């Protein structure tokens, strides 16, 4: 009995010794003490919000995928100055109140250092409005109302709001600039627009620009559609009754698909009077994939023109090729502007933190103003006065291209220098004044 006890003890000690020897060979890299990390945090937390359900659910999902892609790349190379990035996303459900609630949770409870995202202009404005209280930076990556940069940042001096995606100047003025030169004979325009801020601002800017370039332009019908419109046939019917030559539309994502499908079914593109149909954000993957059969069969007869906040065919830069290839391999589709906006935002945060070497929000804001950084869209510049990224994106027509087998892409690109279609400080007259002057609302 005593012998057995001693034997057991010896065996036990031998096992413990063996484990210690094995463990001693395992290289242990102790985490650097926090004080050695320039940012004084092991993990930088970035919270994202988007739409994750309904006809525009692809926008939130793409934001998440774009952010994750950038974060994986950055973390694989050691993070930002040794600090890894952690990302958490939430569904704002297209509701400003939910967006604010989520923002408070992400910052107050989860501990986000930055917030990004937002697909709805209404939610972006609401969340942007509480950032001075939360004292964290919000980077808009999709929602496009110009009031975000012009009113919130420039006029109300809300320094916490930034945006990496182009605003509504991209959806409206650039079309007027191109079509006034290319199709000056198209003078009767009608519109089917979103019955909320995005739609009001777009149409107002488009009308204003067209009137400046073609003084005898006529706007013969204006129709509106709120969120969750499933049936645009009354709007299409009303617009076609006015016999337009051009139709400007702003419903986006799944609603844009429905509108275009119903317009096809109602013979809009067969009408010889109709020369141009604009989907101002038709570069999105859900629109292009949703319309891929019709595009392949040329059902739009070259009348459909689109743009977005990023067109994947707009350049051959290595960063863009890498972005498109990596995303396509992972998700079996091509990225679009929601993806690129988030991807750019993460890399903006990286570059800014590498410059500021602190998470102090005042210092980061200062470093972000005027920052230039490389993105798949090309170089973007954060305009200091309104924290808006400035960069050109072309308009074009969707086609099938054998170089891009997964879905249609935008080709026949037409460019306009940003100086000619972006609005610049002091942003006079204001967007609200233009909307009031131009719209029958």
């Amino acid at each position, binding site marked *: 009995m005593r012998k057995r006890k001693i034997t057991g003890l010896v065996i036990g000690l031998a096992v413990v010794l063996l484990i210690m020897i094995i463990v001693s060979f395992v290289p242990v890299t102790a985490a650097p003490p926090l004080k050695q990390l320039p940012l004084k945090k092991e993990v930088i937390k970035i919270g994202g919000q988007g739409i994750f359900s309904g006809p525009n659910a692809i926008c939130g999902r793409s934001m998440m995928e774009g952010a994750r892609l950038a974060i994986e790349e950055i973390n694989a190379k050691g993070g930002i100055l040794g600090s890894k990035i952690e990302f958490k996303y939430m569904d704002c459900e297209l509701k400003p109140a939910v967006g604010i609630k989520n923002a408070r949770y992400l910052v107050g409870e989860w501990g986000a250092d930055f917030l990004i995202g937002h697909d709805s202009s209404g939610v972006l404005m609401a969340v942007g409005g509480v950032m001075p209280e939360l004292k964290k930076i919000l980077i808009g990556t999709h929602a496009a109302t110009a009031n975000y940069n012009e009113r919130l940042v420039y006029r109300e001096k809300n320094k916490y709001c930034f945006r990496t995606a182009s605003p509504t100047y991209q959806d409206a003025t650039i079309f007027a600039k191109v079509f006034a030169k290319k199709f000056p004979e198209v003078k009767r325009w009608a519109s089917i627009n979103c019955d909320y801020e995005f739609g009001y601002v777009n149409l107002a800017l488009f009308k204003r620009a067209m009137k400046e370039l073609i003084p005898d332009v006529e706007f013969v019908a204006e129709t509106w559609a709120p969120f*969750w419109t*499933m*049936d645009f046939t*009354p*709007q299409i019917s009303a617009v076609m009754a006015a016999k337009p030559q051009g139709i400007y539309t702003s419903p986006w994502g799944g609603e844009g698909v*429905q509108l275009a499908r*119903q317009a096809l079914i109602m*013979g809009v593109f*067969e009408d010889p009077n109709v020369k141009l149909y604009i989907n101002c954000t038709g570069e999105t993957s859900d629109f292009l994939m949703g319309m891929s059969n019709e595009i392949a069969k040329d059902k739009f007869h070259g009348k459909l023109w689109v743009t977005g906040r990023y067109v994947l065919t707009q350049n051959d830069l290595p960063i863009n090729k890498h972005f498109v290839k990596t995303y396509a391999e992972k998700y079996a589709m091509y990225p679009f502007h929601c993806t690129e906006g988030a991807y750019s935002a993460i890399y903006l945060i990286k570059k800014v933190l590498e410059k500021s070497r602190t998470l102090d929000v005042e210092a980061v804001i200062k470093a972000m103003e005027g920052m230039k950084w490389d993105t798949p869209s090309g170089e973007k510049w954060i305009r200091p006065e309104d924290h808006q990224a400035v960069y050109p994106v072309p308009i074009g027509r969707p086609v099938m291209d054998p170089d891009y087998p997964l879905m249609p892409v935008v080709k026949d690109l037409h460019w306009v220098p940003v100086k000619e279609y972006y609005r610049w400080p002091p942003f006079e007259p204001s967007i609200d004044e233009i909307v009031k002057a131009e719209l029958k609302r």
Partner: protein
Amino acid sequence: MDTIVYQGLTGLTAAMFLWLVSAGLTIAFGVCGILNIAHGVLYMFGGYFLFTFYQLLGLNFWLSILLTLISVGLIGLVMELGFLRPIYKEPIGIQLVLTFAFVWIFDDLAKLAWGPVSKIVAMPRFFEGFIRIVGRPFPIYSVFIIGTGIAMAVFIWLLLDKTWWGKSIRASALDREMASALGINIRTLFSGAFVFAAAIAALGGALSVPLRVVGPGIGGAIIVQAFVVTVIGGLGNLKGAFVGALIVGVVGAFCTLYIPVFEMFIIYIIMAVVLLIRPQGIFGEIR
């Protein structure tokens, strides 16, 4: 005049989808006494199942519709047997809370099953194209929708008015106890009525997807309009539901044409006026 006729037909097409959802809602309330907020998700499932059978599995369009009605009917049966039957006699607040919970549950189930991105169904070949009405192209599919909506109205009227089952339904709606005393199996009848209501909503959803898209949340969007229709027409009254759908669809279409600024809330103004003047609805009865 041409514009009025064409816009009216466009509104009529939209009205038929509303009618199909409202008819089911009306039957569920009129017979079973259930105010089913989740009725819109049955419409949504109709769209999803048609997408699955017709677009994904490549089955015949008509067979896909039949399978869709059966599938959603079964979902309705499970809902009725498992969750609604125990609360028939409960206050309406309990019904609202339970059926509202179904909206969120079913929306998330749909996201899990089909993903969050909206689905598109190709227009069947035999419905492609349009006919000329007042010189303008009017989709053949819209003609089919109008015809189906009217046909369903006639079918439901014949079913409820001329068949034993329909008479039992109407008797039970009027006086459950007396109907039960006369030997009618109320439980089986209610289950059948709810399944029928679910199938009608599913038909609306299935027929909508070649024209629209289907995605999470569309049930919530249509149920709001369906409730407006039933309030205008009279809760529990099928004739009222049909007329209410016509009013909402056609007036909405004309508002889009002539006063687009009011298009979003005109139907709510109409509902408010009806509630003020005749709270039981145009064809409803005071209970």
